């Protein structure tokens, strides 16, 4: 199993993005997905960093793919999606509509927000040219195993959500703006004030969700660290790590060891907790339980 770094889900300043990808270039990650997946309003603030980041990552021997938006509605967003396919790198579709712009016969990747729940869907996407699919985080291990087998037969590499705040929902409405009594159009980019998202607790003070603009994430970090043997036995090809603030280089290094089987399950989870002392970890989805639960 190798490692894929997903797109940065949060709204980070351009210099933070630059530093992040320079750091990623030095990690053992095999590939990196770059692009604004959450909100097209953010893109003008950091898109000038993308070419440099790509060069830096390619020079370090990483594979690079470009992500589309998760929810494409505006004309401008559709044009931007079409432009991605002309950039000469594989595109990871995060919304089915993106496929309409796929040049005939071009290979593409499929992100975790596209609904691939079964073999039929995987096979249809493979026929269209999909070569890599990151499965939706809510899938239980039994489904992952069936899909990994179907992927092997169809020549599609299958990825599983390995680490990070899982994408749970996308909306037309911006919840960050709503928290500031603003509408999406007049958001004043308040999501940029929370580089790791804004926490949302239940009324009895339990950590629950994280608001990230139009996107809602889980608050606990969904991790596959406790399930590596199962995933490996199932034939899963890669783990997806989702960027966050903090010592992400060490997180990547740790998952590399975990993926190589160089640490035991208990050791891996313990070291993860050491690296992120304030974080809570969850893996209920893989166990077929509530996603925020820690099962493994």
């Amino acid at each position: 199993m190798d490692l894929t770094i997903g797109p940065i889900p949060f709204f980070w300043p351009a210099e933070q993005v630059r530093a992040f990808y320079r750091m990623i270039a030095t990690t053992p990650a095999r590939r990196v997905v770059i692009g604004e997946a959450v909100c097209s309003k953010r893109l003008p603030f950091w898109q000038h960093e993308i070419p440099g980041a790509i060069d830096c990552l390619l020079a370090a021997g990483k594979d690079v793919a470009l992500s589309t938006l998760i929810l494409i509605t505006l004309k401008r967003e559709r044009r931007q999606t079409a432009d991605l396919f002309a950039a000469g790198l594989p595109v990871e579709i995060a919304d089915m509509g993106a496929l309409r712009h796929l040049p005939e016969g071009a290979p593409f990747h499929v992100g975790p927000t596209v609904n691939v729940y079964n073999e039929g869907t995987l096979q249809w996407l493979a026929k269209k040219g999909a070569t890599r699919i990151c499965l939706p985080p809510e899938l239980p291990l039994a489904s992952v195993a069936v899909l990994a087998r179907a992927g092997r037969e169809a020549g599609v590499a299958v990825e599983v959500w390995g680490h990070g705040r899982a994408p749970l929902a996308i909306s037309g409405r911006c919840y960050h703006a709503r928290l500031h009594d603003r509408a999406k159009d007049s958001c004043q980019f308040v999501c940029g004030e929370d580089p790791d998202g804004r926490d949302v607790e239940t009324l009895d003070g339990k950590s629950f969700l994280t608001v990230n603009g139009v996107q809602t994430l889980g608050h606990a970090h969904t991790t596959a660290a406790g399930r590596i043997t199962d995933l490996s036995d199932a034939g899963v090809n890669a783990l997806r790590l989702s960027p966050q603030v903090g010592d992400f280089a060490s997180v990547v290094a740790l998952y590399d060891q975990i993926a190589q089987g160089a640490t035991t399950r208990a050791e891996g989870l313990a070291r993860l907790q050491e690296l992120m002392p304030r974080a809570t970890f969850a893996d209920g989805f893989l166990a077929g339980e509530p996603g925020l639960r820690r099962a493994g």
Partner: protein
Amino acid sequence: MMELVCPAGTPAALRAAVDAGAHAVYCGFADETNARNFPGLNFSRPEMAEGVAYARAHGAKVLVAINTFPRAGDQAIWHRAVADAHAAGAHAVILADIGLIAHAAETHPGLRLHLSVQAAAANPDAINLYAGAFGIRRVVLPRVLTVEEITAINREIDIETEVFVFGGLCVMAEGRCSLSSWATGLSPNMNGVCSPASHVAYAEVAGNNEARLGGYLIHRTPKGAPVPYPTLCKGCFTAPATHTSPAQTGHIFEDPVSLDATELIPKLQKAGVTALKIEGRQRSRAYVAQVVRAFRAAVEAADMGAPMPAGLLAKLTEGQSATTGAYAKTWR
């Protein structure tokens, strides 16, 4: 006249909807193949065939929703549902999963296919992709679009559009939401349920009424005040203070409201919308009859260019606030 598509969770509700003037009724089989997989709801195979016959005899159509995402390794259950809907004489099936749509298009070439709202096709590219690849004839639009955006979409597509006008309101893009499974392990996509009643608990604590979902407290109202059903995205939460923002407690995603786009019916007609959909397969036949009758009057008025009858559904929304949702841009 715009087509009125009405919910039926039971054969009795189907007959009530047809009798009240529904042009079409949508319903599902009593299993995990449909997105209202609630106990005591939905149709057996013989009930479906009888429902189709009743609707046909009264000039109405039956649309069968098979709109969850088939479980890996168990696709046969969903394939059988499509075959049985076809055999029962359904006017169309409403599907969400690409694999299932591909199967239906290939195996049942004569069967009319509608794209479920659960497929979240929110732009002309996605809609044209499904239309081109599978011959989809109608798309149910996700509730993330404004009327202007719906107008623009209709200019760029050749298939019919259907939009929700009344009932429960998803505030997230439908079919792309795992909030329910995050808290309960059961999701609309996989299990056909959202914030299921099996995971809801009410209690009276220190003079307050509390509602929990999956053990998580998301509603608290003073004793005597009604406590809303704890649907996750309409729950009450706290966003703790950050270095730039004070703490806030409230309905961070959406208030416990329902959708009522009655006033927008003329605009939706002008936007080129073919069909109006009423949510509520879990509702009683009395409710269904009342709502269908009111909306039939509304689409007839719209057809004649007459104003929308006022206070149409005041009784049904009494004590509950309603919103026009994403159809108005300010909602975002």
